[in-house]
């Protein structure tokens, strides 16, 4: 039974908290002035990446991106077309004994996956089904070259869970979607249009045990990226 009345009461503390903030800030004014005499105040400004906008060539961007994927231990390949992408997928299926693939709803993913019929290909997989799939196939909307990062926008494609739950994630990325810096990407993506934006940099990992790196905790333990360069 939902206790709606009680839950709405939990904005009762809003005014007291805001008031407490305002009171504290007001009380601090005199000390702020004295303190500032010795700590020069640096003007706040929101960083823009205009200055850092990459003047790198397409090839350099792809090169940087792949070099960083390599450093992360991400397996990758540059493919020229859907056929080559499909070849990679087939090899991966064979090597890892994959029986069920979950696919996202992007066009390029559908095109690559369509002719695959020796394993089960599931689109719009339910949560329960996802847990039974060995591989998730999605694309990404952007790539960040300086860190080898994939950027997934939830409203452009249904890939939030497909890229997370199955232990292997194969991700397609068009080369022209790669930018050099995180700052550039932050200016390109619009969080108001995409309710969940996910950045993926390598496979899931932890160093919680004696600071020893272990790959593959809750997220995928294997990440494969295919860069589609025309």
């Amino acid at each position, binding site marked *: 039974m939902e*206790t709606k009345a*009680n*839950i709405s009461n*939990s*904005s*009762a*503390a*809003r005014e*007291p*908290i*805001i008031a*407490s*903030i*305002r009171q*504290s*800030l007001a*009380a*601090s004014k005199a*000390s*702020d002035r004295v303190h500032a005499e010795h700590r020069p105040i*640096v003007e*706040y400004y*929101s*960083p*823009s990446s205009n200055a850092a906008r990459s003047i790198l060539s397409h090839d350099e961007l792809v090169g940087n991106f792949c070099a960083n994927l390599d450093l992360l231990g991400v397996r990758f390949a540059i493919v020229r077309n859907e056929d080559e992408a499909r070849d990679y997928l087939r090899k991966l299926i064979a090597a890892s004994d994959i029986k069920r693939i979950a696919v996202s709803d992007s066009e390029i993913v559908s095109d690559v996956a369509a002719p695959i019929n020796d394993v089960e290909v599931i689109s719009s997989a339910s949560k329960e089904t996802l*847990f039974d799939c060995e591989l998730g196939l999605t694309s990404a909307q952007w790539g960040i070259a*300086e*860190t080898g990062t994939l950027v997934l926008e*939830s409203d452009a494609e*249904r890939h*939030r869970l497909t890229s*997370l*739950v199955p232990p292997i994630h194969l991700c397609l990325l068009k080369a022209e979607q790669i930018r050099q810096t*995180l*700052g550039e990407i932050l*200016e390109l993506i619009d*969080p*108001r249009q995409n*309710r*969940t*934006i*996910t*950045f*993926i*940099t*390598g496979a*899931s*990992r*932890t*160093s*919680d*045990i*004696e*600071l020893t790196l*272990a*790959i*593959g*905790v*809750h*997220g995928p333990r294997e990440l494969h990226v295919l860069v589609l360069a025309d």
Partner: protein
Amino acid sequence: MHHLTSDNFDQNAREALRDPVLHGALRNLADNFVERRRIAMSSVDDWEGLRTRARAIKDETLAHLDEYLLQFVENAEKGGVKFHWARDGAEACRIVLELVKASGAEMVVKSKSMATEEIHLNDALEAAGIEPIETDLGEWIIQLAHEIPSHIVVPAIHKTKGQIADLFVEKVGIEKTGDVDVLTGTARRILRQKFAEAKVGISGVNFGVAETGTILILENEGNIRMTTGLPQKHIAVMGIEKVVPRFTDLDVFLKLLPRSGTGQRLTAYQSLITGVKKRPDDEGPDEIHVVLLDNGRSKMLSHPVTRQSLACIRCGACLNACPVYQQVGGHAYGSVYPGPIGAVITPQLMGLSKAKQLPYASSLCGACREVCPVKIDIPELLLHLRAEIADNNASNVKRKFSERLAFKLYGSMWSRAGRYNFGTKAARVMQKLVVRKGKIGKVSGFIAKLVPPLGAWTAWRDAPPIAPKTFRQQWREKLRSGNGN
């Protein structure tokens, strides 16, 4: 769950120092950190400039916290996020409990959140018959061990692989192993089941963007994406200080936090969540609730020195750099926030009288200030808190009195050169009691009781005697001899 308290820091510290396993673990942390940090800093063009900008962003935010906080709420509400306000930890726990019960959940999955540790949320949930499952590997380990985290970023760093393996053998029933991948795989297997079943996921928040209403959460394991993406309801507990003004401000913090925290350029995953899903059959939770937590934070705004406490982005670098933390580890502090930042925020959150030792548990070396990505001047803060403790009457009056007396004496004896000289002469006479073979060795017994610092010093170190000729005497001789060289 019982654990050590801040009040007993000195005792806790002494016990920690006697623990060779802990010593090894902490040594590992310190050694590792130095190298990781060096590598991470070298991958950024202007590390110092970045720190300055980060601090400027935080200062701007905190100076107008009410405005930015309200802007954040307004924009996130546009996306369907529901907000709840909690003046203190108890209120926050009540709210979370109601939200969990409303979903009919008997089990919740949790991702790592220092704010939820601060308010002892798991205890509150368990008391109400709800089972919280920590899903971050380090947090799950300490949950199994019934401990609190000993580090802000790597909560189980005080445990060796062997201890963790034994814990798993006991609590989870696996075979003893020394393989970290097997241990990790065990956690994955067990917790995966919980993710599949859970109706409610509880997380923290690293940053909230005022301009867009976006929540940003960083991680390496994937459990946060699971916790915030699989269950129908997502509850996020967020300290009110976690706001930043603009979306592009995240660039600065995404450069600093992973590098300062774990030496990575970026953690494996960042989730930027701006509202609930648009269509019912989209992926993700049906409801997102943010519980805004004050719990003493608004009070910290009332002085520029304490206000900087709220700039903390919980990277843990100060712990890794601190020579005191390296000696005693996190549990000695008796707080979920240990180390240098813990020494300053624990007294402010819990009350000075409950944690009055912590501001003194530092040699003021300043290594923390040097590594802090947002340039918090922790030594300045420690001194500020020490002054508060010394001027007000904290408890432990007995020790205070003798210390007060000592400082009053020092103040009056050394306020006149004449008295100072007299004091030195007197000391030179009295030191005959303890000087042997040109040095002061171990002093114990009656003299140590009379002059406790002497006993404390000489337990490990010799002390030099006062020089046969003071500087003043030599100076006067020099003047008399007409500046002869």
